[in-house]
């Protein structure tokens, strides 16, 4: 019925192609209309601020009316500033504390959960993801309380074991591992789920063939699974690297970057410029950080696919 209507409306000329020739406008304009809302926001809150920040990074603007063009001074200042390097160093240490352990734990757990005979795998999969959906600010507060030197539950538990109190959040030695643990706790479930989906994309026949060839489970894991997971691992490393270097909420809430800037991550250091209205330097810092992050991401991808 409706088909007939459409045909008659077209003046009886029959084929669908003719129709699109006759009324080409909607179909040609539609995609632009559909994309327009995104584009509008992208230009207003993406392109424009980017260009603005680039210009800002060459000035000494502090938010008043007295901005002066100072060329590369902000960049030079940052590259000579020990705090800038310390913020990168702190993030690098956090990375080392989190990512290797996460990859190892994630792989072992994902392999176990991939086994259809694993009892309670459905439950484990859900339970392990709970930290990932927990608001980071709420957990950061729990960390403050649990890792308190004098009244925290962690030191209380250590006391039961006869171990001395540790200043988890108040000493430069322990503050980084404590922040790293929060990030580790929060994101390992994500790593496991991604690894699990990576494992499930490996054809089962490969394992059967390997088993027929007499490869044991350990050998299968080392010689087949790990190489086949290279892309998945690469993805995880890139995501976690971006996350760790931009890490903000955890140190902001738990330690405010202290003690003695030992937990001031690259992301939090950026915020410190905003706090003192040193906006030109902050903008320059953003761009330096982006260059570093992009370089690290590209290097990770290259490392996994050297022949590209």
């Amino acid at each position, binding site marked *: 019925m409706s088909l007939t209507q459409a045909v008659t409306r077209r003046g009886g000329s029959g084929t*669908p192609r003719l129709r699109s020739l006759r009324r080409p406008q909607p179909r040609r304009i539609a995609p632009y209309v559909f994309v327009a*809302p995104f584009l509008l926001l992208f230009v207003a809150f993406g392109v*424009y601020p*980017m260009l603005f920040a680039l210009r800002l990074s060459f000035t000494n603007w502090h938010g008043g009316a007295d901005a002066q063009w100072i060329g590369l001074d902000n960049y030079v200042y940052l590259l000579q500033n020990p705090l800038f390097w310390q913020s990168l160093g702190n993030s690098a240490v956090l990375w080392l504390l989190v990512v290797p352990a996460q990859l190892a734990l994630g792989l072992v757990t994902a392999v176990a959960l991939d086994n259809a005979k694993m009892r309670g795998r459905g439950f484990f999969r859900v339970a392990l*993801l709970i930290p990932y*959906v927990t*608001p*980071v600010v*709420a957990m950061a507060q729990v960390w403050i309380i649990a890792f308190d030197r004098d009244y925290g539950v962690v030191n209380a538990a250590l006391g039961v074991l006869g171990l001395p109190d540790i200043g988890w959040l108040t000493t430069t030695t322990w503050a980084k591992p404590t922040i790293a643990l929060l990030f580790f706790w929060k994101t390992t479930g994500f790593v496991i789920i*991604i690894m699990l989906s990576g494992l499930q994309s490996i054809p089962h026949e490969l394992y059967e063939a390997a088993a027929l060839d007499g490869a044991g489970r350990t050998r299968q894991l080392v010689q087949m699974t790990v190489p086949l997971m290279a892309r998945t691992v690469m993805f995880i490393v890139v995501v976690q690297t971006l996350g760790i270097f931009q890490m903000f909420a955890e140190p902001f809430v738990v330690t405010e970057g202290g003690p003695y800037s030992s937990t001031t991550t690259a992301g939090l250091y950026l915020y410190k410029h905003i706090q003192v209205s040193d906006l030109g330097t902050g903008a320059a810092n953003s761009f330096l950080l982006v260059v570093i992050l992009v370089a690290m991401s590209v290097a990770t991808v290259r490392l996994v696919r050297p022949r590209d």
Partner: protein
Amino acid sequence: MANDTLLAPTARPALAPRRRRRTTSVDRAPSWLTWAFVAALTVAFLVPVLWAVLSAFKPAGQIVSQPLSFDLSQATTENFAKMFRDVPIWTGFGNTAIVLVVKGGLTMFFAPLAGYAFAKYEFPGKNFLFGAVLATLMLPIVVLIIPLLLEMKILGWVNTYWGLILPGAIDAFAIFWMRQTIAAVPDELLDAARIDGCGEFGIFWRIVVPVIRPGLAGLAVLTTMNIYNDFVWPVIVTSSERMQTLQVVLSSLAANITGQTITADFATVWGELLAASAVAMVPLLIAFLVLQKHFVNGILAGSVKG
């Protein structure tokens, strides 16, 4: 011994408890050691949440004096009562709800629409525009924070819903994901609708949307989680208590403890903090447990990002 366990092949015969069913292990069931390892990890992951929620029901003094013990007979809701009195948590919930509905709504409507354009139309500039989407995906948020904040100041949008909602409202990742999803919708379906006289938007609304509903459900939960937990932007664009989202309200509470502004006694503040944290976690945890399948789909789809 082809079926040696992954972790400690030699430990198995000595340590395996007798009550365990000794399967023929032809199908390579995981060893009890693997199982115990995963179970231990799971317990370790759940303990912080459980400890926090349970402790919130303890008398405030005991949180400090006996952090390890739980006495159900003394369970109390006084921490919650005090917290609701002292902390503007309902304001936080209210603001988060408004941002969630409007910002989430914008993404849920416009991201599939743009994804549809990229998946099913050929038009000049398409590749360039899609490149813009991908660029947004790869751009670390940190570059934008300072200039965006300045832009908000110029527009007078600091401490407004405009400032909270509009930047990043139509999530680039959502567009990318929806493009992948919609590309799988058969063209014949769309052509048939077009022949039936369906308009371009009508095709999207009446054909595409119903077909991709499972993907939309995944997108909805992922968007909800991201907006609910978002902290970096809200904390930067809101300074007035009236406009703060739930996470920002929570974070300034924590600052009261680590900073010098402790007015109440230690134990009371901790009790309120734990109560506030528990209240903030619960809605999302319930949503997660109810909709976990969609959550996992959403998170997995997120992994296409790379």
